[in-house]
């Protein structure tokens, strides 16, 4: 084999170069670099120009370089209560929806993981299927259900539960419903993967030692599925903080969320630097949950090796 080792190592060096290098360069240029540019634009000033912001530096004289750093955007975000409220409300909506997804998703994932083996794949398919159809259209479906003359009010009045239509559409409640509906599969899938990997003999041991099923669930199953809980929760929480479509279509004027505000600053007011400042703050808020998710994922991976 010694004769084969020389070309092999050349091949393996080439393979490293291609496999690691090409995706790395692509993601570096089109994912990491843009985030740095956002940071740079967030300290620019809006200007009536093409593109609509000032340059970071300019040569004003021979050998004199002027660097403009404008912190006004960040001061505005901090001082104007509308931005602060939007951030707080976004975090609140994401938190409430993550808990609701967990409350509904955990029992569903548990039921799937403990169902007879031949049912699992079709049942799991049914969880994934809505995820493959258009997100926008699924959110839109709720407009017809929740609006004052919509199907829900129609049904509730039909059975005499309420006398006049409930105002649900264009409130925060509608946003909760829409988010839980759209993000539920993201919670169920990691939980399901985690629960199917649990060793059933642990539960049997607990039962043999006289532990009741419910207690065994609390003492054995739940702690062992903590990695799945964290992974699923982060898959819901992080994107929901910056969600735009759901609060825009289902929320009302009082549903302040940072995604909607950023969209408005960019498309409505054409204030690119302020939109960038909002993006920078949003990114900073999401770093902690993201690092948490990444560490859990590495732990799962090391555990399965």
């Amino acid at each position, binding site marked *: 084999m010694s004769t084969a080792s020389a070309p092999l190592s050349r091949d393996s060096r080439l393979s490293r170069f291609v496999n690691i290098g090409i995706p790395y360069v692509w993601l*570096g240029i089109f994912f990491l670099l843009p985030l740095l540019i956002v940071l740079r634009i967030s300290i620019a000033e809006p200007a009536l120009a093409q593109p609509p912001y000032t340059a970071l530096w300019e040569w004003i004289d021979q050998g004199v370089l002027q660097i403009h750093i404008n912190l006004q955007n960040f001061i505005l975000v901090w001082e104007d209560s509308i931005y602060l409220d939007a951030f707080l409300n976004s975090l609140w909506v994401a938190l409430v929806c993550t808990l609701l997804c967990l409350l509904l998703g955990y029992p569903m994932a548990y039921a799937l993981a403990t169902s007879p083996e031949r049912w699992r794949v079709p049942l799991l398919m049914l969880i994934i299927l809505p995820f493959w*159809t258009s997100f*926008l259209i699924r959110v839109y*479906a709720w407009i017809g259900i929740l609006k004052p003359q919509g199907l829900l009010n129609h049904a509730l009045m039909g059975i005499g539960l309420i006398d006049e239509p409930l105002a649900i559409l264009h409130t925060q409640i509608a946003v909760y419903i829409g988010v839980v509906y759209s993000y*539920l599969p993201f919670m169920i899938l990691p939980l399901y993967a985690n629960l199917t990997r649990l060793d059933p003999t642990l539960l049997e041991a607990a039962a043999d030692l006289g532990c009741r099923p419910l207690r065994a669930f609390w003492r054995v199953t739940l702690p062992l599925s903590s990695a799945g809980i964290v992974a699923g929760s982060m898959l819901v929480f992080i*994107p929901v903080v910056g969600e735009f479509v759901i609060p825009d279509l289902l929320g009302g004027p009082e549903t302040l969320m940072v995604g909607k505000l950023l969209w408005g600053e960019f498309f409505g007011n054409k204030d690119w630097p302020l939109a*960038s400042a909002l993006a920078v703050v949003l990114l900073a808020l999401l770093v902690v949950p993201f690092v948490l998710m990444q560490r859990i994922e590495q732990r799962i991976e090391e555990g399965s090796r």
Partner: protein
Amino acid sequence: MSGRHPGRSRWPLWTLLAFGYAFLYVPILLLILYSFNESRLVTVWSGFSLKWYGELLHNRQLLDAAWLSVRIAAVNATVAVVLGTLAANALVRHGRFRGRTGFELLLTAPLVMPDVLIGLSMLLLFVAMQQGFGWPAGRGFTTIAIAHITFSTAYVAVVVRSRLAQMDASLEEAAMDLGARPLSVYAQITLPLIAPALLSGWLLAFTLSLDDLVIASFVSGPGSTTLPMVVYSSVRMGVSPQINALATLIVALVAFAVVIAGLSMRQSQRSS
């Protein structure tokens, strides 16, 4: 995990599961039902009709947008499958290479990053690139495709990576021992074995692209309106029966594709 559950304790769980499925499916089923409704109102059923499908097929703006979206989605899915497979190779085959943590970070972040952040940052990059060296001149097909490829790659990598990690390495080792070069081992042994994952990765990337409103809105230019952008502007006006018809067509198409993919995956699992 198949615990020994007495039948009594199972039924609350099954009820909840049924409720969960109802929650996921009732809105879609209602859209499908009302796409055949003659009336424009959602709550009134005034008879079966296909007229909204007829109107949909004559909506020039929507059809043009759909065609653009499909082309972008196909280019996106194809490039993303290549990049995502390379990335999955790197993660599964190259162990603890230098910069692995950063590599994994770059592959995970696009999965959870809010769309407004990706969209805004991509646009600013394209503007800076245009200022710097004149490419891409203007925004449209190319910029939307690049933005979609970037996040789709991360999804494809997840799908292909799990398949690669589960794969039986003995076939590759056998081929290697018989003197096959790594590249031909990869092409003749590995690729056929991971083909189902490549197919589902391609379909996933295709749907993600077809579905994206926010990122495309940031990086598109005049004259490049994608399907979700048309849907969004008509949805903002209120409930529109044409969109119900469109939803029905999308659901039918997706259900068809998923069933095909599922069958082919089962087939390949059986044969391997």
